């Protein structure tokens, strides 16, 4: 089922990408003309031929898929003039680093808060965290980003725009400026992370409340097991079930990173690349990125299935039976 799914997705992606009027060449020319360059009709025709955009899109699609299967060649990006994978690889490392950091932050923050909220249901703390969580979810990421950048600028004179300061860009990342990198990660982490925390907090809280009231928790308590053990050994592990399911989509989002926030905060991750590619109809680049994301979703689902089975023996048992 894996391969057909991917193929269908790639086909749909290709189809949708060529729907808007014009193609990469027309948007390229529009941009260049805005800078004063002059294009004659022959120039335009030559460009189209060069990019192969004078061919019908169905033909181009099959051509592309054929090349992928036989040569592993994903085509090249019109905008960058380079093979697609070299463009993706450029930002892959940093994207993964950023995404993993944010994911770690999200889970490390929300799971304890979720547990706390469940244990102290209806306490002031519970209400405060819930309120913050909902606020974080309701506020658009880019607005939060702008506010935080503004605050940073007013207090410190440095808006912390981008993941790297100029010096870091010149000198590269070393141990001594790694701290600065982390400092600049603060705003992106808060902005992108908080959006995700609310969901996890509420889920963990609800699940924990559910689990805490179960009979086995009572049994454990009756055995003389400490509250902490009940919470962490028994209830938490059961409560993490939906959280593990949620990881399925994370793999793909780790790859691309969030887009609008990245643009606002000038983060050099994959999201803006995809956005630009879609805007300018850089077909092969966008198609490859989207297809990769689809593949990652499938892999992610598989991984989260494995994780679930590890967490919950009942699932293993059912698998064995069926």
């Amino acid at each position, binding site marked *: 089922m894996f391969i057909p799914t991917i193929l269908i997705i790639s086909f749909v992606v290709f189809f949708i990408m060529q729907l808007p009027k014009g193609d990469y060449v027309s*948007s390229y020319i*529009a941009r260049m003309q805005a800078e004063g360059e002059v294009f004659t009709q022959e120039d335009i025709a030559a460009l189209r031929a060069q990019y192969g955009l004078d061919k019908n899109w169905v033909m181009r699609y099959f051509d592309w898929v054929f090349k992928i299967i036989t040569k592993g060649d994903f085509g090249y990006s019109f905008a960058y003039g380079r093979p697609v994978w070299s463009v993706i690889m450029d930002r892959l490392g940093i994207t993964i680093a950023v995404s993993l950091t944010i994911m770690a932050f999200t889970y490390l923050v929300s799971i304890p808060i979720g547990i706390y909220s469940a244990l102290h249901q209806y306490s002031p703390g519970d209400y405060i965290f819930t309120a913050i969580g909902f606020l974080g979810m309701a506020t658009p990421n880019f607005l939060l980003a702008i506010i935080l*950048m503004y605050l940073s600028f007013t207090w410190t*004179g440095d808006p912390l*725009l981008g993941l790297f300061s100029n010096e870091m860009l010149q000198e590269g990342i070393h141990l001594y400026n790694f701290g600065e990198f982390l400092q600049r990660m603060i705003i992106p982490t808060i902005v992108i992370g908080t959006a995700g925390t609310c969901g996890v907090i509420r889920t963990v809280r609800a699940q924990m409340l559910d689990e805490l009231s179960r009979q086995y928790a009572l049994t454990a308590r009756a055995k003389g097991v400490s509250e902490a053990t009940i919470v962490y050994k028994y209830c938490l592990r059961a409560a993490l079930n939906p959280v593990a399911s949620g990881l399925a989509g994370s793999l793909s989002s780790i790859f691309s990173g969030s887009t609008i926030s990245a*643009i606002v905060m000038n983060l050099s991750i994959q999201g803006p690349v995809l956005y630009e590619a879609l805007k300018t109809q850089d077909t092969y680049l966008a198609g490859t990125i989207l297809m990769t994301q689809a593949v990652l979703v499938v892999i992610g689902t598989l991984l989260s299935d494995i994780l679930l089975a590890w967490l919950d023996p009942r699932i293993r048992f059912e698998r064995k039976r069926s």
Partner: protein
Amino acid sequence: MKKKASTSKKLAAVLLTATMCMSALAGCGGTPKDASAGGNAAEGTESTGAGSAQGTDTAEGSSSAETQAGGASDYSEAPMLAELVSAGSLPAVEERIPSAEGVMVENVEQVGSYGDENIKMVLTDAGWGTGKPIEQGLFRFNSEGEVEPNVAKGYDVNDDATEYTIHLREGMKWSDGVDFTAEDCVFFYDHMCVPETFGKSLWDCFKASDGSTATFTKVDDYTFTVSFDVPKPNFINELCINAKWCFAPKHYHETILPEFIGEEAAQAKAEEMGFADVATMGKETGYYYWNVPGVPTLNPWVLSTEPGKSDVEGDYFEFVRNPYYWKVDQNGQQLPYVDKIEYTKISDASQVLIKTLAGEVTIADAGWNDIETLTENADSVGYHIVQWPSSSWGHAASQLELNQTAPDEDYRALFQTREFRQALSIAVDRDEFAKLISDGWQAGRQASPAEGALGYSEEWATKWTEYDPDGAKALLEGLGMVMGSDGYYDLADGKDFVLNILSYSDSGADDTYQVLSNYWNAIGIKSTYKTMDKDTLNNNIVSNEYDAVLSPVAPAETVSLGLRPDTLVPVRNYAEWYGEVGTWYASGGTEGIAPEGDLLELCNLYDQLKVAVGEEERSEIIDKMYQLHEDNIWVIGYMESAAILFSVDNDFVNFPETEMFSDEYRGLGIAHIDCCFFKK
């Protein structure tokens, strides 16, 4: 608000008047454009002296024959280069740049000094942004719009303008130390332009009026000729506009062009360099060459080849000093003063403001939207705002272009009638309009040449600008239009008249249309407004499926009709107002729609201009062309264009307070940032 507007406007007016005075002086008598057989105006950024003798230009400062400071032994160089020389990895400065005879001297306003600080800029896309400020063509425009020597030392032209002899500078070298000779120019034409190796069809400047193409011939190492079958009087100017530079490093391209190494090897080379195919490699190395690491150039700064700093698609890259740069200041110091330009990528144009406020840029674009924030913080951060007048004929979103070849015959006739355009023009209260649209920063104005550009006249700027709705109605009725029952005018035969206006998304026309439509409604003209993607609009224009465009894709703008006529003369299907006439002209009369009346006259005049010999004849023709525009007001404008703003670090000296911002002057190119330095 109004106070601010008037102060800045006063400033602008003073500066522009000053510029005008200077151009008047330079032009000596009303023809600032100079392409006289033989002479060139003096070079250097501030000189006002008249030109030198036939063609050849010796290294000079002011017009007199005084030798300026700087014999060969008087050259000095940047410390970083001096280090390399003493380490033995770089030849001495006298061997790197032309001798006194050939070197180009820039008479800078303040003589600068070398230092540690680098120029910092930001951009969303490399491309022309990195190129225009440092581009060095064979010739260049000075602030008055006259051509002056640059890479070339000068030129001669024969009597009937069929042969141009171009003189290069002896001792000039590419950024990798290889000699720069006439062979590089001839090579560029013969092996790159003609075979179209960089994806551009052969430029018009190399074609004569009969369609024949130029011939480049090397005379000696530092001289070559360009010859045509029929007279081509305007070649040098056209060269400046069209081809800009006219050379390429032969020794480099011989290693990558398929003509020399074969298709297969070229393909391998392309892949090695990371390009998709030979065509892309040709385009990038041949046309956008300054953005490819390793390509030798004549520019003051060259893209770094250091890993992590040489990828213009990356987040950060540098342009580093060219040790073989062939210009010195009047004290013999080799330019540029600054070692590097550091470029940082931003993902959105709005982030320029943030970078400016953080003090992280030397020169940056500034927007009128942010003018208050910028001026508030200017002193504390340490920059100032400069205003450069634009060469546009008026605020783009306030330009209305009626398709003179509109598909419907009746509409076409109406649009072609002067009185109709007049009615639309005087129906609008420009004072109110300008206040609403620009918060009072700009004033209302007719679409006409900018102050400081050729063709400017106060009359033209105020023609048909009085607010007279009744007069408008009278004009409409005079044309035979009849007031319909819906309160709007219909055509004489009773057909409903609707002015269907198109524009492209985010053009700014949403706002201007909203205001304008009120006035048009008041005089009984019904209108509709639709926006679409720019590409879609282009498609409509190409297929002549439109009536009128507000905020045209190709708004009226030029420094001179003679130099860059594209938006104002129907040379091809380009600007919205002349539509299919452009196609008619470009196809030689076989396609498109033939013009009549004044439009035909305009085309005829342009034909004459292309073969006109002699400065007087040219300026006469150009004047007549301007006059036609003034008579007809083919492009209706409602507001003056805003000046282009830059924020400039206060410590960055010699950056011009004002210049005209235009493509002809290569945008920031005319700022000559190779002559700027940081004061300590």
